[in-house]
């Protein structure tokens, strides 16, 4: 049996700045995970991913990341995505500082 699709966001790194961005529902790139679109339909996710990956002048390394629905928007289900939306733990730098 195929595995049940889990909700995802589309994410990658901005081409010029290199920092983490997420795709919002209006097709803009946001630096806030809470503003990202949580995609719950698998076919929708695949189409959105292909479109996002084609935007090579804006972003790089685009992929689908697992998320859960939280009170203030998508929430990471894995610690890697939690670090990506926060920044390093040894210095107050990256997203947490902006």
């Amino acid at each position, binding site marked *: 049996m195929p595995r049940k699709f889990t909700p995802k966001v589309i994410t990658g*790194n901005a*081409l*010029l*700045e*290199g*920092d*983490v961005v997420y795709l919002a529902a209006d097709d803009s790139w946001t630096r806030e995970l809470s503003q990202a679109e949580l995609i719950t339909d698998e076919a929708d996710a695949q189409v959105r991913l292909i479109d996002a990956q084609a935007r*090579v*002048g804006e972003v*790089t*390394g685009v992929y689908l990341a697992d998320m859960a629905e939280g009170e203030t928007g998508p929430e990471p*289900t*894995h*610690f*890697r995505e939690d*670090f*990506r939306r926060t*920044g*390093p*733990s*040894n*210095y107050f*730098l*990256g*997203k947490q500082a902006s």
Partner: protein
Amino acid sequence: MYRYDDFDAAFVAERNRQFRAQVERRIDGSLTEEEFKPLRLMNGLYLQLHAYMLRVAIPYGTLRSAQMTQLAYIADKWDKGYGHFTTRQNIQYNWPKLRDIPDMLDALAEVEMHAIQTSGNTIRNVTADHFAGAAEDEVADPRPVAELIRQWSTDHPEFQFMPRKFKIAVTGSPNDRAVTAAHDIGIRIVERDGEIGYQVLVGGGLGRTPMIGKVISDFVSGDDLLPYLEAIVSVWNVLGRRDNKFKSRIKITVHEHGIDAIRDLVEERFAEVKPLFSGVDQEMLAAITAQFAAPEFRQAPTDAYDAAYESDPTFRAWADTNLFAHRADGYAIAQISLKAHGETPGDATSEQMRVMADLAERFGHDELRISHEQNVVLPHVHKSDLPEVHKILKAHRLATANIGLVSDIIACPGMDYCALATARSIPIAQQIATRFDELKIEHEIGDLKIKISGCINACGHHHVGHIGILGLDRAGVENYQVTLGGDHTETASLGERTGPGFSADEIVGAVETIVETYMSERESAEETFIQTYRRVGMAPFKAALYPEKAKADAEARANAA
């Protein structure tokens, strides 16, 4: 020290010009990411978790003051005011922007530095003993030959698209401080009947499949070295597995074919390659060697040192741990710890870089070294200057007296920065160092090397740590496997796993348990951790780490009896 000639300067400038144009073409859309990625990697530019990362080569770990000052300038101007020194004697900037990279590379070129071949399937930065040219126990300075290899391997047309990356390390001392046994090729300078030559090891490496290098030749003479190296890389370039990334390194080739078969192939290839070397490499080596002439060591009394050692316990503690015997009378090798308790191993702020550069200029014959253990070295300091050097280091949090001790931990960037990591390394290192500092027992524990990697690729050298820690992702939770008994020196060995891993909350306690076990098992304070481990084996450590398992085993044995 080696200075660029016109050829070097023109080569780096041309590469920088090309890369500037490549970055422009990526930004204007002429190049796709697939096309751009190999180009950026050839110039040391990675994309990590939070940003780009620029890895700058520090050939054989040697820097002049002006170069260190420029590294500080780059950190301030285009990064976030600090840099991370790595286990391959490089420096990494963690926050550059794509548009700024060409300017950063130009700024590096101003001080004869670059980021070429710090990534990609090429021959990487050649590393060497960080005490080169200074150590009392040295047969010969490894840097001239390391520089020769750098020149030979840079942009070598045959070796730009190899099965995988290729790492070479050189030691000029029988006491191996360059981890040569864990490199694709390890070179050990040896003397035979008055002639200087090279013992060559091949097929060492850490990562997924750790291997200790095997001796392929006990003695390669000076004029045969480059053709011999070319023969080795050439044989592997053909035989190496391009079908499977995990089997592509030369350690697997050597393992699959056997060292004897590889040796025969290398000899065959050497016979073909050798006539192509006209001897010009030896002329170049002679010219390079002249540039590495030792500084003029001064003759002076060491009374100031003796007085400070006698009267200042802080200075004495630092001198006892951080100084190393120098070959010149009245001199010492001073190690600057980048492991202040609770700080990130290998990180230096731009201010600290400038302080170290200034110290090297004033007191250290203008030389600095970066060690694979992520510390900085002032290789030539007259002992009479050491109290002043120490005072200045102390004022900038650079005088931690812990070289070789439990808090002098190697840690890769781990998941705090690295896109490949499976768990974090830095916080574990910080917590272990802080914990042992609280206990105030690290000097009592003595020589103990902890090495932490945040993934199986082993940038943190965990396999050759006396205590190795490997961070993994176990079902979405950080988990840390422990190995014991690794050794990175001339008596190299790989650590053995203790058993099941520990959670992030448990790992510091587990390390404490290991250290306590060692303290109770050791025969005397002189018996080091690795000596004790080799004498008593894994059993007491296992029993202490997994008491439930030990109890269950004992009950099972009792029931069976």
